[in-house]
Every structure is written in structure tokens, then in C-alpha cells.
């Protein structure tokens, strides 16, 4: 039977509210008795009640953008969380609460999915800091795992399991009308049970209406699709699918697929031409009309399947087919997240690994601290010694770029 969204919804009051959000006193709302001197308004009461539920523990990480603490429920110390306390940056004068924080709060409040980091609550503290109570993911991130070539081995079945979880998360975002716009291995955190969770919605946005322009200056540069380098202002869920394809290739090859160095846009376009093929009117009708369309003069034909197979043999023929379809130049021909999920890859051999068999040592809880304190669009710091920043040069404030100029 066709279900209409008009079904079984109000005028009844909502039956189920989120567990973590206390109900307003009662619905007849007899005013609270005056205690001491000040009567707090209802919103302040609720905020305070939320804050008092948690006990903040030690600091897991500290970054320019946020501090992350471990925390537990006052009523049940076994239930642990990570609290991300957003710092007030210099842009507060010109913007107030930052776009990143607002986006993260807006979207995580709406998304409830096993492969997306859960936002349990938000509260503010007296000094007006925003505190996000997030799911605690102590096993680090996928980037650490990929980079730990000496200590961690994983199989094509493991890759399939991770990619399946990632694609489910991305599909869920898309059916909710949300573009993530920053999918990369260090935004994929590993839970205690080995499952992965998509995090960092600081660059996310709701899909725009037709003709409403969006910024092309988004997504961490190595994972950014060609249409954004060509400055398309109208784009859709295909941008995230390209990033997923880049993550897929990185999982297989254990190195960044489009690792332009130095990380300039022109180098990225050159790399994409070399590794996938030069975008032309033939393989991407209309591409030459995009404002930023520039390619190296030598036209490189689309890379044939045999060459893809040679580089990514480990994932098998069906896997290579999927990889090529996620890294298709023309966003209209690229698979959608749903198309990816319907691909025969998932049901072909080998079966995806069971959660309990997945490697899960992507660094420790400090890694979560580090991941959550980063600002969207930045490249992560190197895993290696010396603390050399992998992406110092591109750690620019992506979304503000356009308007602050």
C-alpha cells in the first residue's frame, strides 16, 4: 500500500521523543515553583537538565576548532560518550556561531543511522560554548588503518564490508536530501564493534533547489570530483559518490588515489586526467561550458578497464567495475549511492566480512579526539613521526573563501 507522509502524524502529540531530550515538565505546564531567586525559562531549564546528565572526563584531543573530552552518564557511568566542545574562533565577530557548527548540529540532529555518528544531545555552558554529546568511537579512523601498512593487514572482504557501511551511510544522507561534501578516510571513524561511522558534517548542506547556486569550493581537495574543479555551481549527490570512489581506491591500494603534490587544483585536474582520462565533450557532454573548464592540452583517452584491473586486481573484476562507475567523470553518468548499493559487487564473492572479524585498530581514542577537532576540508596530519602536517598548505577555510574576499 502506498504510504503517504500525511499518515498518522499530528494532530496527535508526538508519541515518542528522543530519549536524551527530557520532556517539558508536563503538558499542562503548571509553572515551576520559584526556587531561590531566579526562575529560569523553560529552554534554560531543559538545557541545564541536559548538561547535568553528563560527567565530563579527560580531554582526548584539542584542535583549533574544538576540544574533545570523554564523558559518561551521571546515572550510568558505563555509558560513555565523546563531548565535542566547539571553540569560539576569530570569525565569531563576523559570523556569530560558525557555519561549520551550525551545519553539523543541523544535520546530525536529523540523521539516525547505524553508520553515521550519533549526536545524543547538545547543550550549552554558561560561557556560551556549544557542547555536542557524540557517540564514543574509541577505535580510531580508517585512515590510520590504511596507513598502518606494517601492523594491519586486511582483505578484500574487509574492504567490501567497510565500503558497504560507508555507502549505506551516504545513501541515507542523500535520501534525506543532505550532501556530506567531505567524505574521506579520516572522517570514517571505527566503533568498538568494528563498524564504521561517517562523521564531520561541518561542510554538509541540504540539496539545493534547481537553479540555486552552491559553492564549488568544498570537499577536501584529494577527494574532490572534477565538476567542482571546473567550478560547477549546480551539482548533486554525485559529488559524494566520487569521494566514495576515491576512498574505495585508497582502501585497495593503501595510498591516496589522487595525491596531487603540491595540492593545487591544477595538479589535481592533471592527475584526474592521467588516472581516469581527460574530460571532453565526448565523454562528458556539456563539460566545456563549465566556467572553470581547463585541462592539460594533451588529451588522454579514458583509461580502459584492463588498466584499472591491473592496478586494482585485488578487488576482483566486479569490484573494478564498481570502482570505475563511481569514478566516472561525467556526474550524470556516475552511479548514485542507490546505484552503487544495487551493484552486483555486494552479492558476488567474497561475502563482506562480519563485523567481529574486521580489523579495528585505527589508532586509539586520541584519534577520535584529533578527528573531531579538525575543521572540514582539511587534510589530516601525517601518521608518522615528526608531526609534519600533511596538508598545511591547503588548510584554508573553504566555505568562507568566496565571500570574505
Amino acid at each position, binding site marked *: *500500500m*502506498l*504510504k*503517504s*507522509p*500525511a*499518515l*498518522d*502524524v*499530528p*494532530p*496527535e*502529540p*508526538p508519541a*515518542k*521523543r528522543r530519549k536524551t*531530550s527530557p520532556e*517539558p*515538565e508536563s*503538558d*499542562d*505546564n*503548571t509553572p*515551576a515553583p*520559584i526556587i531561590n531567586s*531566579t*526562575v529560569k*525559562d*523553560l*529552554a534554560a531549564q*531543559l*538545557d541545564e537538565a541536559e548538561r547535568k546528565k553528563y560527567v565530563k572526563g579527560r*580531554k582526548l584531543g584539542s584542535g583549533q576548532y574544538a576540544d574533545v573530552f570523554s564523558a559518561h552518564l551521571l546515572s550510568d557511568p558505563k555509558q560513555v560518550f565523546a563531548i565535542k566542545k566547539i571553540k*569560539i574562533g576569530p570569525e*565569531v*565577530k*563576523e*559570523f*556569530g*556561531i560558525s557555519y561549520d557548527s*551550525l*551545519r553539523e548540529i*543541523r544535520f546530525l*540532529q*536529523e540523521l*539516525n543511522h547505524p553508520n553515521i555518528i550519533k549526536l545524543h544531545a547538545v547543550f*550549552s555552558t*554558561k*560561557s*556560551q560554548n*556549544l557542547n555536542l554529546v557524540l557517540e564514543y568511537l574509541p577505535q580510531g579512523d580508517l585512515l590510520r588503518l590504511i596507513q598502518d601498512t606494517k601492523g594491519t593487514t586486511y582483505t578484500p572482504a574487509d574492504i567490501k564490508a567497510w565500503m558497504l557501511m560507508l555507502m549505506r551511510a551516504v545513501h541515507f544522507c542523500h535520501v*534525506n536530501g543532505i550532501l556530506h561534501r567531505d567524505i574521506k578516510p579520516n572522517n570514517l571513524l571505527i566503533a568498538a564493534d568494528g563498524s564504521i561511522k561517517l562523521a564531520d558534517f561541518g561542510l554538509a*548542506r*541540504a540539496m*539545493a*533547489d534547481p537553479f*540555486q547556486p*552552491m559553492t564549488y569550493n568544498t570537499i577536501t581537495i584529494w577527494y574532490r570530483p572534477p565538476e567542482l574543479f571546473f567550478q560547477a555551481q549546480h551539482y548533486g549527490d554525485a559529488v559524494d559518490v566520487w569521494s566514495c570512489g576515491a576512498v574505495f581506491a585508497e582502501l585497495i591500494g593503501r595510498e591516496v588515489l589522487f595525491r596531487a603534490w603540491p595540492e593545487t587544483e591544477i595538479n589535481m585536474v592533471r592527475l584526474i586526467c592521467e588516472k581516469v582520462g581527460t574530460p571532453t565533450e565526448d565523454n562528458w557532454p556539456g563539460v566545456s561550458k563549465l566556467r572553470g573548464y581547463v585541462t592539460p592540452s594533451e588529451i588522454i583517452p579514458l583509461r580502459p578497464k584492463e588498466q584499472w584491473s591491473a592496478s586494482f586486481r585485488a578487488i576482483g573484476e566486479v569490484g573494478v567495475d564498481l570502482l570505475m562507475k563511481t569514478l566516472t567523470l561525467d556526474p550524470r553518468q556516475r552511479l548514485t549511492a542507490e546505484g552503487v548499493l544495487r551493484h552486483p559487487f555486494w552479492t558476488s564473492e567474497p561475502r563482506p566480512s562480519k563485523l567481529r572479524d574486521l580489523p579495528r585498530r585505527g589508532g586509539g581514542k586520541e584519534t577520535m579526539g584529533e578527528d573531531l577537532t579538525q575543521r572540514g576540508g582539511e587534510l589530516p596530519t601525517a601518521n608518522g613521526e615528526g608531526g609534519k602536517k600533511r596538508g598545511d598548505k591547503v588548510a584554508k577555510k573553504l566555505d568562507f573563501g568566496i*565571500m*570574505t574576499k
Partner: protein
Amino acid sequence: MTSNTISEDDLYRTTSQYRLWSFSPEALASRRRGTHELALQRAWQHAPTSDGASDGAARGSSVDCLTVGEELRLVQRYCNQIRTTSDHFQWPVQVKATAVQYLRRFYLSNSCLTYPPKDIYKTVLFLACKTEATHMTLSEYARRISTDPDAVLAPEYKVMQALRFTLDVRQPYRGLKGVLMELLNMANGMVGEVIDAETRGAKELQASLLDLAKPSSDAKTPWKAPATGSVDVKHLTDRINAAYSAARTILDGPALLTDAYFLYTPSQILLAALQLADEPLSSFYLTTKLPISSDVRPKILATISTCADLLFSFSDAVIISKEERARLEEKLELCRDPSTRDLVQAHAAAMRGSDEDDEAKARKRKAAREKSRQEGEDLFGPRLNGVGAGGG
């Protein structure tokens, strides 16, 4: 989670709009009453106590305070102000709708007596502009509405708190656009079947659309059936487009200036607007979605009708005039909560507080405790075992 698929209804039920911001009319009214009474208590608490009276209620009753109804009308007036300001900036419609709902949601847990809407509406509009990914810097915004930038930012955290840190507002605009496109396709004989509901062929659907009864005389659509001859596809296309823009006007006005978003879902609101625009057309559309035999059909139709009644009951004349607004704001001044009068300064103080990290404060406290303990020991010798100082 093991069940096969989630319906659109299930998805809607996970939204914050459903979880926190959907009410029955009774619950909504009592929430507002509760908030109003709480605000009165607050205001009286701070009232000067020269006569030494501590019984706020007794004193308060002698002051002529804004009533719940008056508060509502004042808020409605500022919702309208948000609409005109947002339209003036030519911002996308989502900004306007989001900002209006922010203001309405804000006044479910706050009263005008504590935070007058003339302080708050600029803040919610700027916040909505940010959450809906529309870019304008604070300085430009403040300049264009001739306001001090600090006054825009000062209540921002208060607003976030009142919104319970939920920022997403589900809106009926895109859904209405979808109905328009579907109807146009049907009119052109391009749609024949809708899974599980409609099994007539494309030609038959088109024919029944062409045969549709005329809109009634009180319909909001400006479209009129041709005086002579039968309706052709061109007429039909005009009819659908006219119904769309009439419904769109209702979404931009009555839907934003009533409690519609608190009481109904976006799809109920858009179908109600379409019903007011062109009833035969909207009924036809519903038959393609909801088979006559469906059990839930009567319930859905009844809900859409009550929503339509709410939207219909609104007219621009309900919005209070400038003079009336001034009168209410004067009255408000007499009973307003003095503790929230200077939001800019309160905000600045709070921001200064935030420079000092909680931890740093804790460290300081500990150091001070340690120091006083040491000093205490110097004076009185070491602490006796088991007798706690109980400090801290």
C-alpha cells in the same frame, strides 16, 4: 532495523520537527500558557520591592500585563516583518520559512515579556540565513537593517537554546513543486500509473483531468474555465499552473503566519493549500495517490480539511497594525523582565567568561584550595585525621 524498508512516514517521524515541534492544539495552547506564567513570575521577581512585598503574584495582578493572546499577535507581526525583510533581500524562500519557524518556536519557551520580539527577530533571520546556506556577512546584514551587529549576535545562544539545538525546518515548498510537475505530466498524458494506487492508463487520466469540474467561485485560483467550448490541454496546463501559484501564495502567507507548522506535516499543509486553490484539482490528485478503498483515506482527507480551514481563516487583516504594535510594545515595557534588558552587555560578559576555559577555572580553584589549605596548616598545624575540612 531488520524490517525491509522505511516509509516516508517513518523518515518524517525521525525528524526533530516531528519529535520536538509537533503538537495538538491543546498541548500548544497549554505550552504557551505555561511559558507566559513563568515569564510573569520572572518579571515580578525583579520588580522593585520598595514596599517590601515578596508576594509577586499579588503585586503582579495589579499591573496591566500583556496577555497570552497579545503576545501571540505581537509575535505574528514580527513573523510578517521577517517575511518582508527576507523578501527584500531576495533570499530563497527556505530562509524565510525557517526564520519564521525559529521565531515561533522561540516563543514557545520564551515570552515577549522576557525577550521582546523586536530584539529577537533580527537574530533568528540571520541564523536562518546561515543554516540555509545563504551567505551574508554580519556587518553587511547589520548595515542593511540599520542595527548594531552586536545586537544581532547577542541573543544567538539564547535562540539556539530555545530551539533545543534543532535547526532543521521541514517545509512544504518542494513537495508542492513536485505536485505541480506530476500534474503537468498527467495533463500531457505522460503518466498512467502510480505504484499501488493508480492503475488507469495515461490517456484515461488525461481525459479525467480535462473533464474536471470547475473550481468553485471562492477558490483562490485566478483560473477561469473557457466561456465557450471544452477545456483543452493548453487550458489545463494554465489551470494547473494557476493552482500552483495560488497555493504557493498560501504557503508564503497563511501557512507561515498561523500555527500550521506546529499542527500539521509539510505534505498536509501543501495539500491543504492546493485544496484552497483549486478543490477539484486537488481531489483528483489525491485519488491518484490514495485509492478510494484505502482505510486511511477518510482520516487523511479530514486532516487536510482541518488544515485548510486553519489556512482559510487567516487574512492579512489579522496582522496587527503599526499603531497597535506600538501600543502593545508600550504595554510590554511596563511588565517586562528587567534582567534581560541589556542583552548585548550580558552577551559580552558571557563571551568574556568563555575565554577562560572551564578547566582553567577548575585548576585555579584547585590551586586556591591548595593554597588556603597550606596556609591553614601553617597557622593551625596539620589537619587532624578524619576531620574533613569540607572545603571546596
